[in-house]
């Protein structure tokens, strides 16, 4: 006795095709709602992905940084630096760290010279782990080793731009350059760092170019051969995992407070903390826009409901005829339900299509990264199905509860 779903689908589809203009008008609101959902989710997705690549480029999500606290009032005493002994003490206290680097900045010497050419570069004294904490690699030659640190070797590793602009692109490794009164051997070139901030639009460009202009020598070389008054101004540590990074961050914070007699001279930050902040921001952002989309879908749903109610009224006689030839109330109910859901789903699919088209254009125009994945498309379709189900119930119930005798009398 039951009429199959396939049958109802068939009726629903032919209803939609015989009433094209009305169907298109009906789904207009849904299309707009789905487009707005799609665009917003794509922007959030793009923001997150872009921030994550930035994090990766800056040392990964397990990185913890110790830097001078710029908010600290230094008139209260204390200095934003650590002696090598203090660094060693800290290092021993965090054996769980996967990589550990301490850094000095050679502000007094920044002019690299090679065959009469000069290149101004920020030179830092670092440990071998620097490569790991920064998620960096060498494109040619090698990085600083424990032996280099042990012997305060006269070696230097150049950033890609420094190497290219000072020496060129051929046979850079092995060349001797001078810095201050010392002659240093180039032992390696670092990979090029690059991150285009798509979210800042045309102001972008490679935001990490400054890193390619840097150069690195062993920390011992910096102190022993250039300036023995220099002290460590920053630490970079890699934890075992992003979660461990949060624990390590708290621990380091405590260690530094104890070391500096409770003064907040240093600021400890972690990539994970940044990511959580970003996620919190994204959540607020998406909540606001999901609310807006929800309201637009609610309006669309009410419009659809009214059009379907009008359609039920207009088709009263048809419903009466169907009941007279043996349709059950549930058959009529399902017929109208399916029709509403088909219309809203069609709207959802069209919305995705148009949304993708729009995204393509605005992301190119705004030079913003927007990412649509399968999950977003699936949820958009799901939302339109749900809108159909929710707002289809009333018209379908009305159709299913029509009195056939009244319905057949209707003109």
């Amino acid at each position, binding site marked *: *006795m039951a009429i199959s779903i396939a049958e109802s689908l068939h009726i629903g589809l032919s209803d939609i095709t015989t009433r094209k203009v009305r169907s298109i008008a009906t789904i207009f609101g849904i299309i707009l709602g789905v487009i707005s959902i799609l665009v917003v989710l794509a922007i959030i997705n793009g923001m997150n992905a872009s921030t994550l690549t930035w994090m990766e480029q800056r040392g990964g999500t397990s990185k913890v940084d110790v830097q001078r606290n710029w908010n600290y009032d230094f008139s209260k005493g204390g200095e934003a630096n650590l002696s090598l002994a203090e660094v060693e003490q800290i290092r021993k206290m965090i054996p769980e760290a996967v990589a550990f680097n301490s850094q000095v900045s050679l502000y007094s010497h920044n002019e690299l010279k090679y065959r009469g050419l000069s290149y101004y570069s920020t030179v830092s004294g670092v440990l071998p782990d620097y490569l790991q904490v920064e998620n960096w690699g060498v494109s040619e030659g090698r990085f600083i080793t424990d032996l280099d640190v042990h012997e305060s070797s006269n070696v230097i590793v150049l950033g890609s731009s420094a190497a290219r602009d000072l020496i060129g692109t051929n046979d850079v490794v092995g060349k001797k350059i001078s810095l201050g009164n010392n002659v240093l051997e180039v032992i390696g070139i670092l990979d090029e760092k690059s991150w285009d901030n798509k979210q800042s639009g045309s102001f972008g460009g490679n935001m990490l170019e400054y890193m390619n202009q840097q150069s690195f020598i062993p920390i011992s070389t910096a102190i022993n051969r250039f300036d023995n008054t220099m002290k460590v101004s920053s630490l970079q540590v890699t934890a075992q995992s992003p979660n461990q990074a949060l624990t390590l961050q708290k621990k380091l914070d405590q260690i530094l407070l104890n070391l500096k007699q409770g003064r907040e001279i240093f600021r400890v930050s972690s990539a994970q903390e940044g990511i959580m902040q970003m996620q919190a921001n994204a959540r607020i952002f998406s909540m606001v826009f999901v609310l807006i989309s929800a309201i637009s879908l609610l309006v669309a749903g009410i419009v659809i409901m009214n059009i379907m109610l009008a359609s039920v009224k207009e088709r009263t006689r048809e419903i009466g005829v169907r009941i007279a030839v043996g349709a059950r109330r549930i*058959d009529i109910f399902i017929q109208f339900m399916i029709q509403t859901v088909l219309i809203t789903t069609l709207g959802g699919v069209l919305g995705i299509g148009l949304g993708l088209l729009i995204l393509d254009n605005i992301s190119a125009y705004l030079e913003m990264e927007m990412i649509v994945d399968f999950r977003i498309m699936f949820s958009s379709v799901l939302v339109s199905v749900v809108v159909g189900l929710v707002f289809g119930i009333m018209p379908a119930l009305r159709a299913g509860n029509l009195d056939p005798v009244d319905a057949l009398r209707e003109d």
Partner: protein
Amino acid sequence: MEIIRTEALIKDYELGKVKVRALDGIDISINSGEFVAIMGPSGSGKSTLMHIIGCLDSPTAGEYYLDSVLVSKMSKSALAGVRNSKIGFVFQSFNLLPHLNILKNVELPMMYGGLSASKRKVRAQEILEGVGLADRLKHKPGELSGGERQRVAISRAIANNPSILLADEPTGNLDSQAGGDILEIFDRLHKEGNTIIMVTHDPIVAERAQRIIRIKDGLIDNGDLDS
């Protein structure tokens, strides 16, 4: 064998505070294979009675037995099943679905009866050929004459081989030529063994029936005496 029996059927319509009694205690008995005409003045309750017999409406009081089963005891979906397979309705105003072609219109009861698409198409074609509409299968009802439309409606009514055909003034909207054709078809269906109950105002039409039931003010006028 008795196929339809009503006992003291009463139907009231409430119009605000006014109560309209459309049926005022109708007792009828109709045997399987009978051709019965129902006559009576306008507003006497003929259509109301037909709707109750056709399980489209239920009486305010009284009993209706269909095939010896008390209809008021049947579930709604069982009633849908009865309308689908036991009863065929023909209306004065045809009541075809305008956006479906006539083949699809005839298929409709078979679809709700669960017949496969291919089987019901074959059957619908067969019936429409039988009423001389073989070359109009893809036409919409709006493209047909009144007589042709009524032939489609009859085809739809008999699609599921129902045991009872209910026709409420089937020739009321037709000229005498087309009306005659329609009556021919009912005659044929009667000869094939169908039970037919037909409401008509036209005494000449009623003459074709074996028996005439007259109704006046919701009451049987002459009982089963007439023939």
